[in-house]
């Protein structure tokens, strides 16, 4: 997955993806069994998929006791009615924390996590020692992968020694953290308290099956206790999906609903996973079933996914033997040539580099509406942050038009995701997150030094404050971050780790590690086997290497901050010489800072004011070389190079822009003209075609230019086609009329 480094919320998003948001077992669980007595009876029946459960809930739903009524309506799938009844129940006894906890679980079941959190906290306010509320809060926090979830689960376990669910939740979170030892320990603690702790057994079964063992021991115990416990397969499916073993995850989800057809959370998750893999008809069927027959209101992710499936009809598909490209029809003509070229180039590069060929086509989808992309990948919009996601051979990403220009480098994102396709395929998805992300980040700059994400102040602070993680624990930074920026910092660290490995041991070491992970070895073993050092020895070498590389920036960070501030003030006072002096020093300390308000921007302004063109060009070039992505400076560079007669450099600057932002008609026109002048009519044809696809107002001029480009490539029929189109738009266009005569030999 490729994230946008400047988004702090990325931590939440990145982790959500790998867990899926539909199948967390505790959404359906009574959890703390604090309900009114009749409810507990109904819950037992429901857990066993006993047909009598419905009648039981129906009886409850007509109770005069509002709490019992709430539980009954909830059990019947009437979430709105249940919520109203819970409101009455709480009003009837506002000092009862259990009512708040149950109401919170209802909110949790419909994605209203903030409401759930408020009620769990309300329960704790009534009774700060109330263990079910501690557990509930842990569950709510774990939904958003908040590092405090574990603390609350531990508190709950301490507050109530018999609360086995707290240990189950800890086991769940440890396994999400890719920490199997701790997961086993927690699961076994739960089983010591309750030998029929079914989720603990499911977690152990999941671990066995991920290790290619049958897990029979645990499954037998589960189904002996409850033959209809589909939740076991749902939990197992969750961990397979989290570990990107999607086919197996989907198969387990199918088993879950075979066993318990009304396990709506599993059915919804199955629908979403099927949608991700292009099985849209079946996905629609499953999601519609949840929407029509499941609890009301349906989960947000279900509703959104159904809407997205309707949107996907508007997509246009381009297929070859090795690739499938899907774009929104309104931008397909613009994007397809560029994506196709980069995808083909990436496949050719990676096949050689990884010595591996992907069987079957690789599919790439680009979404102009970021909310659609989020629904495609996460099920819910509005959380921001991600740019691209890989599911097996499927890549979904933001379209270059899906974000403001300069926010991301679409080609780097594509290469990043393609790297995942290869690494996951080669390891059969048995790779820790840090490794596949690290390799993908490394590949971005391996193909072009100016592509990948730069070291931002966030990473500078993490290095300075010694917040980077040991290699053996790096996965934790991606899954359960302990501070908001840790996910993106971990991306950076992963990329640097792979860079270090390549520099010291060569790229074959990366291939050796891929082989090691494929053979189900863990990070520590792979490090030892391939690099011949222990993880601790690796850390002892890697951190000094990184610190040496970043020392100037890290040590000078405070000075750099002050320089920027002072340069900004000097700019306001129009003291351009001072801006140049301060800005130059700032650049020297931290050349990788290319974000808004960078020293580059200040220097460009100062040199502009002083009409110092050579230094302007030099600064703009440095900005581009250090990964600057703002279109305006790149276009300014192209214009200045054109003015200076350096057409090749001008074209290079605009080619760079093409990999960042494509819907810039004027830039395409300029690049097309430059290519024609540089004797590259193929490139010119592509650019004038892009200008047309961008919605140029100058149809006549653009078709005419296309005609010239095609004539130069000896494609006279195409040239004629475009000159006619040019003249249809502007019949009195003299150059067009002249070209028509030339092309028709008259």
């Amino acid at each position, binding site marked *: 997955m490729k994230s946008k480094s400047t988004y702090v919320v990325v931590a939440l998003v990145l982790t959500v993806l790998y867990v899926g948001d539909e199948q967390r077992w505790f959404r359906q669980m009574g959890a703390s069994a604090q309900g009114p007595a009749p409810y507990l009876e109904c819950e037992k029946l429901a857990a066993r998929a006993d047909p009598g459960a419905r009648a039981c809930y129906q009886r409850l739903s007509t109770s005069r006791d509002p709490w019992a009524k709430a539980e009954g309506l909830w059990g019947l799938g009437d979430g709105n009615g249940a919520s109203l009844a819970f409101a009455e129940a709480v009003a009837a006894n506002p000092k009862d924390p259990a009512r708040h906890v149950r109401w919170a679980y209802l909110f949790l079941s419909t994605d209203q996590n903030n409401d759930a959190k408020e009620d769990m906290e309300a329960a704790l306010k009534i009774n700060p020692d109330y263990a079910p509320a501690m557990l509930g809060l842990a569950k709510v926090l774990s939904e958003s992968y908040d590092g405090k979830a574990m603390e609350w689960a531990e508190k709950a376990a301490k507050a109530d020694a018999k609360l086995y669910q707290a240990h189950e939740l800890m086991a769940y979170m440890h396994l999400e953290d890719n920490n199997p030892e701790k997961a086993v320990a927690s699961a076994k603690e739960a089983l010591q308290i309750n030998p029929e702790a079914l989720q603990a057994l499911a977690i152990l079964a999941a671990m066995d099956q991920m290790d290619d063992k049958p897990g029979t021991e645990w499954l037998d115990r589960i189904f002996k206790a409850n033959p209809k416990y589909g939740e076991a397969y749902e939990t197992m499916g969750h961990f397979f999906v989290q570990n990107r073993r999607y086919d197996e995850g989907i198969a387990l989800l199918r088993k879950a609903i075979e066993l318990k057809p009304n396990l709506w959370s599993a059915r919804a998750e199955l629908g979403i996973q099927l949608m991700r893999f292009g099985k849209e008809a079946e996905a629609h069927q499953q999601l519609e079933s949840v929407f029509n027959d499941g609890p009301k209101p349906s989960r947000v992710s279900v509703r959104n996914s159904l809407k997205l499936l309707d949107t996907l009809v508007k997509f246009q598909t381009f297929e070859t033997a090795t690739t499938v490209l899907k774009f929104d029809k309104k931008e397909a003509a613009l994007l397809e040539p560029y994506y196709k070229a980069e995808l083909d180039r990436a496949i050719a590069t990676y096949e050689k580099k990884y010595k591996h060929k992907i069987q079957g086509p690789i599919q790439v989808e680009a979404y102009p509406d970021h909310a659609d992309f989020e629904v495609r990948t996460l099920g819910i919009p509005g959380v921001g942050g991600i740019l691209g996601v890989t599911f097996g051979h499927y890549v979904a990403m933001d379209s270059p*038009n899906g*974000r*403001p*220009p300069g926010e991301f480098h679409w080609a780097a994102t594509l290469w990043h995701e393609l790297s995942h396709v290869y690494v996951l395929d080669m390891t059969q998805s048995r790779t820790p997150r840090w490794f596949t992300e690290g390799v993908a980040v490394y590949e971005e700059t391996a193909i072009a030094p100016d592509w990948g994400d730069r070291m931002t102040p966030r990473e500078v602070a993490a290095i300075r404050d010694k917040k980077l993680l040991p290699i053996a624990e790096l996965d934790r930074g991606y899954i359960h971050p302990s501070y908001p920026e840790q996910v993106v910092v971990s991306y950076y660290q992963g990329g640097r780790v792979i860079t270090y490995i390549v520099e010291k041991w060569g790229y074959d070491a990366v291939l050796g590690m891929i082989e090691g992970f494929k053979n189900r070895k863990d990070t520590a073993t792979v490090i030892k086997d391939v690099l011949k050092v222990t993880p601790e020895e690796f850390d002892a070498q890697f951190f000094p290497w990184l610190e040496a590389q970043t020392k100037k920036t890290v040590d000078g960070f405070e000075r750099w901050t002050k320089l920027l501030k002072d340069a900004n003030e000097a700019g306001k006072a129009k003291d351009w010489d001072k801006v140049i002096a301060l800005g130059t020093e700032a650049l020297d300390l931290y050349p990788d800072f290319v974000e808004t308000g960078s020293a580059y921007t200040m220097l460009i302004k100062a040199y502009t004011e002083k009409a110092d063109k050579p230094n302007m060009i030099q600064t703009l070039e440095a900005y581009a070389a250090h990964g600057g992505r703002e279109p305006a400076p790149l276009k300014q560079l192209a214009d200045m190079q054109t003015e200076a007669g350096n057409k090749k450099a001008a074209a290079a600057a605009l080619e760079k822009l093409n990999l960042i932002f494509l*819907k*810039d*008609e004027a830039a395409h*026109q300029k690049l097309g003209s430059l290519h024609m002048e540089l004797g590259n009519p193929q490139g010119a044809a592509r650019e004038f075609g892009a200008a047309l696809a961008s*919605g*140029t*107002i*100058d*149809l*006549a*001029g653009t078709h005419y230019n296309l005609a010239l480009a095609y004539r130069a490539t000896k494609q006279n029929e195409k040239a004629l086609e475009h000159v*006619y189109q040019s*003249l*249809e*738009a*502007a*019949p*009195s*266009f*003299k150059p*067009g*009329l*002249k070209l*028509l*005569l030339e092309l*028709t030999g*008259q």
Partner: protein
Amino acid sequence: MRKLLLLAAVAAISAQATSFYLTVAGLGGEPEYDQRFTGWASDLNKALAGEAGAKVELLSGKDATKANIQAKLSAIAAQAKADDTLMVLFIGHGSYDDIDYKLNIPGQDISASELNDALNKIAARQTVVLTTSGSGGAIKKLQKDKRVIISATKSGSERNATVFARFWVEAFRDGSADTDKNQTLTALEAYKYAKLKTKDYFDTQKRLATEHPLLEDTGKGEGEADPSAGNGQGLLAGRFPVLHLGSASAIASTPAKQALLKRKDDLETSIDELKYRKAATDQPTYNKQMQGLLLELAKVQASLDQ
């Protein structure tokens, strides 16, 4: 359509016709806006510098007062004849109080009604371009037969600062705005250019559009975002030249080529008619006829150019 365009070209080259331009850059309220408004106005004047026989006036900053605007318009009224053209461009902030539109200028603001009074005294054909916030609210007050009104906003209630002016001015500097390549930028072409660029601006910035331009040139409509034969708007604007980009019409004064010019005009008319019939014509037939006409037109043009 073609005949009308030709008439416009002939009118434009008439030795008697004069093109008047009055640009008013109103108050910015903040230095950034002041600088932006006067910058755009100044850019337009530079683009108009080569316009033969044009009389270009600019009021900006402290000079953009109501009295000065009215005085300039009175002076134009004293000179302008019916064959002349006048383009009045207002850049800045505007407001609308559900009764009348006002342009924010130093001193007392000038209202759309007051502008209308001043403009009604001018005989020349007119294009009034209001690029300010709230300018859609001025259409009703200003609309008149043979007057093109262009507003940056669709109503008086679109109150955010606008960018339409920037792209209207850009149309005068970007040759691609002359979409029919006849070397004459018309008010309609400039409007379409600025409208498209404004839309692209908001799309690209991923911002909700806070301005939706309109054009009204029938004297009685509400204004249309997309003027066309279908809605009856744009006919007048399509033959209202706002800038001449070359010397396209020099040939017209050569009597020896009148027959060829007549043939060229006929062919262009046939092309226009065919284009209007496009929806009702099957594609192969349309292509064949269009290509035949264009080829013949190319030959005629080649003869004219000899």
